[in-house]
């Protein structure tokens, strides 16, 4: 005899919940709660992190993100326009650049700029190793965002460009007044995604070494780990990262919904 469909479903859901409960029970029973609270939730350590975790570390993470994003956008715009240039050499140069920097781990570029270049040429970036690391982040994020911008520019309907041209606008004014403003609207959601990735990529700057007033969240957490011989700082910076990035991804979702509505 076959069971009713609703009964079957209730049975299936029950099994799924039972499995979940079993896993939770095993974790709770086997977890070393003493070690967890001593290493991750140590009150004195948490107090010691305050207020530098916000006033120095979080502030620097945001600052480095903004610098890398602004620089990356500017570079990306140049690269995107080069990729769309009628001159083959420009298209080729931009393609080589983009493929090169998208193909390398960002960390390799950061170490190269901050440590390799000074070693080889005796040149130090403005702002020291951190400045060099930021230049590296700009170089890498510019390569990624260039492709996004190019796609956005190409997504603007051809008739828009034709209308501007038929009114006598030259290439520059057509781009600035008609094409780019519409392209920017199209690429705001993907660019915001890029911004969230950059928030996390600033953690790679840890590798170049920095003074205390320059530290971003990851360096701060790592130094705290050493100073307090305790893992609480890592949990603390993880929470701060989430406080920064979750609202940002909610913003992306909001922008995408709004754009879908506007497209109708």
């Amino acid at each position, binding site marked *: 005899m076959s069971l009713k469909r609703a009964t079957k479903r209730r049975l299936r859901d029950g099994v799924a919940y039972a499995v979940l409960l079993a896993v939770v029970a095993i974790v709770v029973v086997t977890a070393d709660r003493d070690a967890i609270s001593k290493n991750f939730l140590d009150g004195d350590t948490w107090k010691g992190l305050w207020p530098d975790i916000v006033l120095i570390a979080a502030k620097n993470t945001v600052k480095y993100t903004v610098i890398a994003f602004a620089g990356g956008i500017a570079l990306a715009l140049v690269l995107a326009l080069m990729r769309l240039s009628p001159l083959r050499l420009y298209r080729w140069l931009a393609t080589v650049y983009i493929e090169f920097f998208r193909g390398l781990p960002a960390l390799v570029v950061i170490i190269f700029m901050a440590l390799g270049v000074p070693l080889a040429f005796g040149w130090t970036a403005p702002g020291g190793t951190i400045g060099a690391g930021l230049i590296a982040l700009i170089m890498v994020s510019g390569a990624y965002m260039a492709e996004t911008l190019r796609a956005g520019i190409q997504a603007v309907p051809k008739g828009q460009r034709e209308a501007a041209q038929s*009114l*006598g606008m030259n290439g520059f004014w057509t781009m600035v007044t008609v094409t780019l403003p519409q392209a920017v609207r199209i690429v705001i959601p993907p660019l915001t995604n890029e911004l969230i990735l950059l928030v996390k990529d600033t953690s790679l700057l840890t590798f170049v070494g920095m003074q205390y007033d320059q530290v971003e969240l990851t360096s701060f957490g790592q130094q705290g780990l050493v100073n307090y011989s305790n893992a609480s700082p890592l949990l603390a910076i993880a929470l701060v990262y989430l406080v920064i990035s979750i609202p940002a991804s909610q913003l992306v979702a909001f922008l995408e919904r709004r754009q879908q509505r506007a497209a109708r």
Partner: protein
Amino acid sequence: MSIPAIQVSNLHKYFGEHEVLKGIDFRVDQSQVVCVIGPSGSGKSTLLRCVNRLEEPTSGKILVEGIDITDPETDLDAVRSRIGMVFQQFNLFPHMNVLGNLCAAQRRVKRRSKDEAVEIARRNLAKVGLADRENVYPAHLSGGQQQRVAIARALSMDPDMMLFDEPTSALDPELVGDVLAIMKNLASEGMTMMVVTHEMGFAREVGDRLVFMDDGVIVEEGDPRAVLSDPQHQRTQAFLSKVL
């Protein structure tokens, strides 16, 4: 006698291997309204788009007010600013309101002051009956209203002539009349016009000359009433029997 507004001679245009225009000779005199009709794919839109070089002619000569626009030395933007163009799909700038659409090129190409551009824009909006819509964005206008704004946008550049590329083909039937009325009004003011259209009534009533194109050539041309009522060529007869 004054120089023709548009003079096209022996124009050929290929899209890849496909020859779309097969040696066109065509002319529009000052203050003349010339309507171009023909089946889709006949090359009539391509011919119109060659006149302001939105399409690059493969060979042949196009003179606009005596200026050879196929000459690489010609300042194409300057010539284009004197040729108003109206598109089938309107092509208003969606990120600007109506006034912004009308002023953008006036400011950047004609280098007019803001006040002057706005004044001219308002005059042309009044002309197309949309004076009360200057702050509205295109998405909030009907198709017919969008096309009237597009006409006002072109007129704000004080063009010497207007090109219309099937201006009513994308409109709901009840909105066609408004747009045609504005075009008729323009013609009566002496505007030089080249109109690619399927509106035989407009061609008969407003046109000074009618050109029938098929398969990349001009098959027949002449007085609109004569061509429409007594077509000489068999291909013209076949086409008109289908659309009239």
